[in-house]
């Protein structure tokens, strides 16, 4: 269990109430990550053992793997993503409710790995915003648990309540859908998303 410490000592702009609320929300989020197990090949087996009793991801509150993206907030891409599968992976990611995070497990999903070939996506960061990369082929379950812990420290630094207060509700609300407009994961510095580059090209046209 983490402590209820202030969100970030450097970001004390939000005032006492907002920072405390941030800390509470982040504490809740980071200790109840629900993974979407996108087990695509051999890494998927290692992920199963990570979720099982021996490595016991339940110690960190992230063992509730759900096979519907609607109930998940952490996508673990475990395995070789092919271009044919990329549409499905992106659809699953889109269907996950915000806030959501992505872990690229193994060299295949981090960079294409040894499959420098015509059918394999050379890193899932070409189609998804990845938060943590885990090297290894396959990575040991401990390495992925470490990635989840690293992700937890990152979630601690997010400022959900202050973001919400900074955005007037009328702007963020999507007409007639009863939900907020989907915001890109702004806090993600590792985004090498084709989408961004392409959106810029399209904006220039």
């Amino acid at each position, binding site marked *: 269990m983490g402590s209820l410490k202030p969100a970030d000592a450097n970001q004390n702009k939000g005032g006492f109430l907002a920072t405390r609320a941030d800390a509470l929300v982040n504490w809740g989020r980071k200790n109840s990550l629900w993974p979407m197990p996108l087990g695509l090949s051999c890494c998927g087996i290692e992920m199963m053992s990570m979720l099982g009793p021996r490595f016991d991801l339940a110690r960190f509150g992230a063992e509730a793997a759900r096979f519907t993206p609607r109930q998940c907030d952490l996508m673990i891409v475990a395995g070789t993503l092919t271009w*044919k599968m990329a549409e499905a992976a992106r659809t699953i990611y889109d269907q996950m409710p915000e806030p959501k995070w992505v872990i690229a497990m193994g060299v295949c999903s981090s960079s294409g790995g040894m499959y*420098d070939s015509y*059918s394999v996506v050379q890193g899932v960061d070409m*189609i998804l915003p990845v938060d943590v990369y885990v090297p290894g082929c396959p990575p040991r379950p401990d390495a992925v648990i470490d990635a989840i812990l690293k992700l937890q420290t990152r979630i601690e630094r997010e400022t959900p309540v202050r973001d919400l207060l900074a955005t007037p509700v009328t702007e963020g609300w999507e007409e007639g859908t009863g939900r907020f407009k989907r915001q890109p994961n702004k806090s993600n510095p590792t985004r090498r998303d*084709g989408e961004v580059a392409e959106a810029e090209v399209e904006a220039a046209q």
Partner: protein
Amino acid sequence: MTVMERLATALAGIAHEVETPADGTPCLRVAHDGVRPLMQALKTGGGFETNTFVTAVDREPAEPRFEVVWEFLSVKHNDRVRVRMLSNDEYPKVPTIIDLWPGAAFFERECYDMFGVRFEGHANLRRLLMPQAYEHHPLRKEFPHQGIEPDKLYREWDRKRRTQGGQPS
């Protein structure tokens, strides 16, 4: 009794050449028109109840360029036979054998996917491994190792998704 002795009566009257490749499996070479009668003879007279594989070889720069290969196994007699057909077409046309060996359907789809061999009479000749709309055949010699625009179809789909908002978020 060797395979060829066993096949001698079944293959009487069907044009073919017999070759013995280095691995010792008897190999029959036929032209396009000889494929169907030969296959029927192998199935009925030869007792080959199993089709092991259907594939192709891109022999570039040799001529003729493509070679379609079938291999059959007789479990009863414990022997094998291989059939080859050479073709110099850009997209070789070959009669299908799925009416004789239904299990060949997937092999033919894979062969079509990877080499562009057209199997005449195959009712469902779609790609097996690559996306349906892909335009190239990956195991051909001219196909580069890292592919030709491997992300093109995904990018098209992605653009449609973002501009038309088809996907729920």
